[in-house]
C-alpha cells in the first residue's frame, strides 16, 4: 500500500503572534515553526498502517525552504521519501489554489491512500484534504480516528458530534483527514535521524498562483467579549482574591 501524507508547517502553539505591518498576515520573522499537530497524527497513522500492511509512506509539504525541516523530521520518524513543493507564496493561494498545487504534485505518485490532518492550527479552514480528494476524483472521509485495511479497501472510524462515532467503508484510492488523538505520536529515534539523511527529498516547483476565489483581507486582535478583571499579586494574594470572587461574585463558596 502506498500512502501519501500531506503535512503543513505552522507556527509553534506557544508563539507570540504579532500582526504584520500591512495587517494582512502575521509577522513571520521571529516565529518558530513545527508540524501541524493533526498532520503529525496523520503521519503516525500512515506509519502504523505501513508497519501492519507493508508498503511505502511518502510525505509531502508545500512552502518555502524552512518546511524541509518538517520533512526531515517526518523522514526521521519513518517516512520513506519526501516531496517538497517549493512555494514561497502560500498566502497568495486560497484552499483551492493550495489543493490544486498538491494535486499536481501527487498525481504522478498515484497513491492508494492519502492522509492529512483534519485542519491546520493556523488557518483552521479544515478543507484542504476534502478539496484535494474532489480534485483527484477519489472518495474521502473526514475526522477519522482509526483506519483498517480490508479485502475491498478501507474501514474507518469517523468521529461524529457529542461522543458518537460511525464506521465507513470505502474503496481505494481514497483520502482521509485524521483527527488528533487516535494514536500515540512517536518520537524520532537517533537511528531514525541518521537514516533520514540517506532518504530522498524530491523537489517540485509549484505553478504560479492563479486567481483566488476568496481572499483574506486583514487580520487583527479579537475584540473582548467580556470585561475581564485581572487579578495580580503573589500566588497567595491571587488565591485570596480569587476566593473573595468565588464567595461574593460567583457565589459558589
Amino acid at each position, binding site marked *: 500500500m502506498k500512502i501519501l501524507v500531506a503535512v503543513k508547517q505552522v507556527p509553534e502553539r506557544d508563539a507570540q503572534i504579532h500582526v504584520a505591518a500591512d495587517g494582512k498576515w502575521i509577522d513571520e520573522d521571529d516565529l518558530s515553526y513545527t508540524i501541524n499537530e493533526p498532520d503529525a497524527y496523520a503521519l503516525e497513522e500512515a506509519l502504523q498502517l505501513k508497519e501492519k500492511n507493508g508498503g511505502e509512506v511518502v510525505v509531502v509539504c508545500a512552502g518555502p525552504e524552512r518546511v524541509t525541516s518538517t520533512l526531515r523530521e517526518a523522514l526521521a520518524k519513518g517516512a520513506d521519501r519526501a516531496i517538497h513543493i517549493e512555494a514561497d507564496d502560500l498566502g497568495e493561494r486560497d484552499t*483551492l489554489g493550495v489543493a490544486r498545487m498538491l494535486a499536481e504534485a501527487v498525481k504522478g505518485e498515484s497513491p492508494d491512500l492519502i492522509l492529512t490532518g483534519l485542519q491546520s492550527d493556523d488557518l483552521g479552514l479544515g478543507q484542504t484534504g476534502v478539496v484535494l480528494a*474532489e480534485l483527484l476524483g477519489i472518495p474521502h472521509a473526514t475526522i477519522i480516528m482509526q483506519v483498517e485495511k480490508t479485502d475491498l479497501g478501507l474501514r474507518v472510524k469517523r468521529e461524529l458530534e457529542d461522543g458518537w462515532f460511525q464506521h465507513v467503508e470505502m474503496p481505494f484510492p481514497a483520502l482521509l483527514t485524521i483527527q488528533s*488523538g487516535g494514536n500515540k505520536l512517536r518520537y524520532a529515534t537517533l537511528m531514525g535521524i541518521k537514516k533520514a539523511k540517506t532518504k530522498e527529498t524530491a523537489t517540485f516547483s509549484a505553478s504560479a498562483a492563479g486567481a483566488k476565489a476568496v481572499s483574506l483581507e486583514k487580520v487583527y486582535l479579537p475584540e473582548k467579549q467580556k470585561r475581564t478583571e485581572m487579578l495580580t499579586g503573589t500566588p497567595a494574594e491571587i488565591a485570596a482574591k480569587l476566593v473573595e470572587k468565588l464567595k461574593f461574585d*460567583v457565589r459558589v463558596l
Partner: protein
Amino acid sequence: MSGVLVVLEQREGELNRMSLEAVAAGHLLAAKVGGECSAAMLSSGGGLKVGGVAKLYSVEHELLKDYTADGYCAVLEQLVKKLEPGYVLFPHTYQVRDFAPALATRFGQVLISDVVAMHDGDVGPVFVRQLLQGKLNADYRQTASGPCFVSVQAGSFRAEGEGSGAEAAVDVFVPELKPEQIRSKPGEPFRESAQTVDLSVAPVIVSVGRGIGEEGNIAMMQELADALGAELAASRPICDNGWLPMERQVGSSGQTVSPKLYLAVGISGAIQHLVGMKGSKAVIAINKDEHAPIFEVADFGVVGDLFEIVPELTKAVLAAKG
C-alpha cells in the same frame, strides 16, 4: 433566485440548534445583500416544518437516507445550479465539514468556513473567522463570481424564534442520483460506552488544558476540583493524551456545559473549546499567556504560573470552607 439559501441539518426529523442559528445568519445576510432567505433540507421525509424562511426546498431521494458526502454533494450541486442563490449558508457541523468543501470546489469556489460574524465591506459582505486557535480574527471576502459558500460556527448568531413563525411553503425537489455515484458505505452511528459523567449538570467545573504539561499534574487539579466540589473537565489535547477520559472533554467534539463557574486552568481557548463553555455564568481563567483567547470570555483572569497559583488556591478554598 439571488438571495440566500440555508442548508439545514436534521437528525431523526429534528432540526439541530446550529441550523436555526444558520437561518438567523441567513436573515442577516439577506438583509445585507438583498433577496430572500430560503432553506433546503435533505431527506426529511417531508415531515419537518420550518418557519420564517421564504421557501423550504425539501430534497427527497431514497439514497439520501444515510448521509454520504457523495450523495449530498451531487444533489446540492443540482439544487444550487437550479436556484442560483447568491449565498449558500451551512451550520459548521461535522457533517458540513465533510461535504461542503467538495461542493464549493464543484463551483470553483472556496467555502468560507467557521464564520463567527459578518459585516459590511466596501464590496459586499465581509466574513469574520478566527485564526491560530482564536488568537486572531480575520476578515474574508469572496473574490470570485458565482455562489458564495459559507458555514457558521455554533453560538455565533443568535436564533430567536427562527424556525417558528409562519410555515414556509414547501417545494419538493427530486434530484437525480444513482447508487454507483455513492462510493462509500456508512455504518450506523454508535457510542463507545455509556456516558458516566454528565458535565452539563455540574454547577462548578474545573477544566484543564495543555498548560498542565504532564499527566502527573492532573492530581493537583483534582485536588482543586475536590476542594470546590467541582467536576474535573479538560480541553481536547488532555483527553487525546489519555490523561482524562474522553467523556470529560468540553468543546465542539465533547460536551457543552453552562455551569455557574467554569475555572479554566492552562487552557488557551481555541474556538472549538470556547463553543463548549461560553454559556457558563462565570468564567475564571488562569494562563501564563496574557494574550490567550480564553481571557476574551473570562470574567476574572490571572496571568501567571498555574503551578504556583493552583496549590495556593486549593489551600485558600479549603480554609474559606473551614
